[in-house]
């Protein structure tokens, strides 16, 4: 005993520390009970596993051209399960390669935007006043830049490159994230536990990282899951316009764009990639909804 010889009567048995049910664990349990979100999680997992392992089950390469099988419907004899495209390439393998690119763009760009947006927004909200004004006006200015113009400029200067798409998407998506985090931070920084941290003498940087960011993560995670499909869509849009990934590499946007041109004569070229894209977007949206419900503090 450090201070007292007497032990307060409240303490009876000695015991091992009790394992706690943290806020996160409670949220996880609530998420498990959400059927739509759990179903989406499983479907999404299957799509990701398929994107990783699927191409190795097919005898075809994603860039192999079969001159004798141009624009064929699904054909099980030659193991073209989704048919072939206008250049005689296997659509099954190309759809799964497209999944890799689209998912990678979605996850990476979202992660980048999340990191920048959270740190930027928390800093602006925490310091408030003039700092906040300056930082958020800068965000407003960036908001006014037309996105397509920004992307085309990047393409012109640096040439077409898949990493540019990450940069361009990340650079745009963090703005909204910063605004959300700033708003949350403004609400949290007046709470008493932040004042308690000030009274202890914790430095501002530590307060931001130890006290503010963990408490804004709920809405951030929800927004991130809703950003992923948004980013996939923008990438598809860019590819649709011909500003996206470079042939022979492909993405869902590219495949849909090609399929849309020939949808009267070769509907499978549109249907398969479109079905994958739509399913993935649905899954992310349901997961986002589920997370929002699970992390809602009023439900605690």
């Amino acid at each position, binding site marked *: 005993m450090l201070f007292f010889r007497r032990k307060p009567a409240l*303490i009876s048995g000695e015991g091992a520390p009790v394992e706690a049910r943290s806020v996160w664990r409670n949220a996880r349990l609530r998420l498990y009970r959400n059927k739509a979100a759990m179903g989406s999680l499983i479907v999404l997992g299957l799509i990701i596993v398929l994107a990783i392992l699927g191409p190795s089950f097919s005898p075809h390469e994603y860039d192999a051209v079969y001159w004798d099988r141009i624009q064929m419907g699904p054909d099980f004899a030659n193991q073209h399960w989704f048919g072939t495209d206008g250049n005689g390439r296997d659509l099954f393998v190309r759809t799964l390669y497209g999944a890799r690119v689209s998912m990678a763009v979605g996850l990476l760009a979202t992660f980048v935007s999340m990191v920048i947006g959270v740190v930027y927004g928390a800093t602006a909200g925490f310091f408030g006043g003039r700092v906040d004004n300056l930082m958020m006006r800068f965000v407003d200015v960036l908001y006014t830049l037309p996105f397509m113009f920004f992307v085309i400029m990047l393409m012109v200067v640096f040439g077409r490159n898949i990493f540019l798409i990450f940069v361009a998407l990340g650079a745009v998506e963090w703005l909204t994230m910063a605004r959300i985090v700033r708003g949350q931070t403004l609400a949290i920084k007046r709470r008493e536990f932040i004042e*308690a941290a000030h009274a202890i*003498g914790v430095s501002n940087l530590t307060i931001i990282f130890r006290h503010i960011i963990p408490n804004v993560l709920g809405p951030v995670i929800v927004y991130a899951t809703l950003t992923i499909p948004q980013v996939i869509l923008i990438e598809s849009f860019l590819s649709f316009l011909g500003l996206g990934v470079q042939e022979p590499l492909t993405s869902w946007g590219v495949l849909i764009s090609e399929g849309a041109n020939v949808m009267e004569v070769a509907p499978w070229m549109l249907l398969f990639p479109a079905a994958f894209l739509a399913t993935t977007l649905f899954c992310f949206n349901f997961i986002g909804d589920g997370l929002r419900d699970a992390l809602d503090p009023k439900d605690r």
Partner: protein
Amino acid sequence: MSAEPILKVRDLRVHFEIPGKGLFGKPSLLKAVDGVDFDLRAGETLGIVGESGCGKSTLGRAVLQLIEPTAGQVVWLGRDIAGLRSAAMRPLRKSLQIIFQDPLASLNPRMTIGEIIAEPLVTHRADLGKEEIRKRVQDMMANVGLLPQMINRYPHEFSGGQCQRIGIARAMILEPKLIVCDEPVSALDVSIQAQIVNLLQDLQRRFGLSLMFISHDLSVVRHISHRIMVLYLGKVMEIADRDSIYARPHHPYTRALISAVPIPDPEKERAKERLIISGDLPSPINPPSGCVFRTRCPFAQERCTQEEPKRRTIADGHELACHFDGPGL
């Protein structure tokens, strides 16, 4: 109790600027604390009472430099700390702590209580190892009546009274010299209130703590305080030893407050004389001229509107800010 005060507050003022309405509106000044003086000795409890909005909490935070005072001195162990930069203030925070009104809101919901109580140690005692910190946290949990094996739990798993014990453990772990208690029991049940107040008194006796006990509950303040300061609209109305202020309150406001405390005896309660004041607290943006209490004082006279009463000593350690010696007594 030693004679030399560890904390001297002199003419402390906290004014907030309220932005004016519209683009060119004139900003107005809200005087939350307006010229407060008091001393606090080691091991002493100063009770600070007053209505909501009279500047009690602001005063407590201004003493700790959580709100920057506009003017005046806060002399802590012989050194004026008013307006110190936060970096210069940091080493002093070891000996100055605060306990909050809302026990749950003062704990970070994403941290275990072990992490919460350890935070002052982690911040100020980088020399301590993980094991030593854990041991000290568990010892302190035992001291405030929490089961040490609950160290891994989260605040939302505890009741209000337990959360307040966690807050006290966090404030106590660096063995501070002064704790500002900002209405520490007003959010708790009456039975829990008694436990927490007794815990604070217990800790005070053992560690020679000084307490600034802010409350609007006069019975609690009477139980724990050695001296009592009555605030009204950011100004001190009366300050005296507990026994003399309850036995013979001089200021009409103090008398009104004390006579409003219910006595748990119906006979006495019916028989007691009440001084009832009417109206609400005037706006601190636009305080009354002269004596700030005159708008609600039943004994107000012409002089009160023109002249602000000076604080004067009417008996040993009993100071009063009123033109009259206990009007109507």
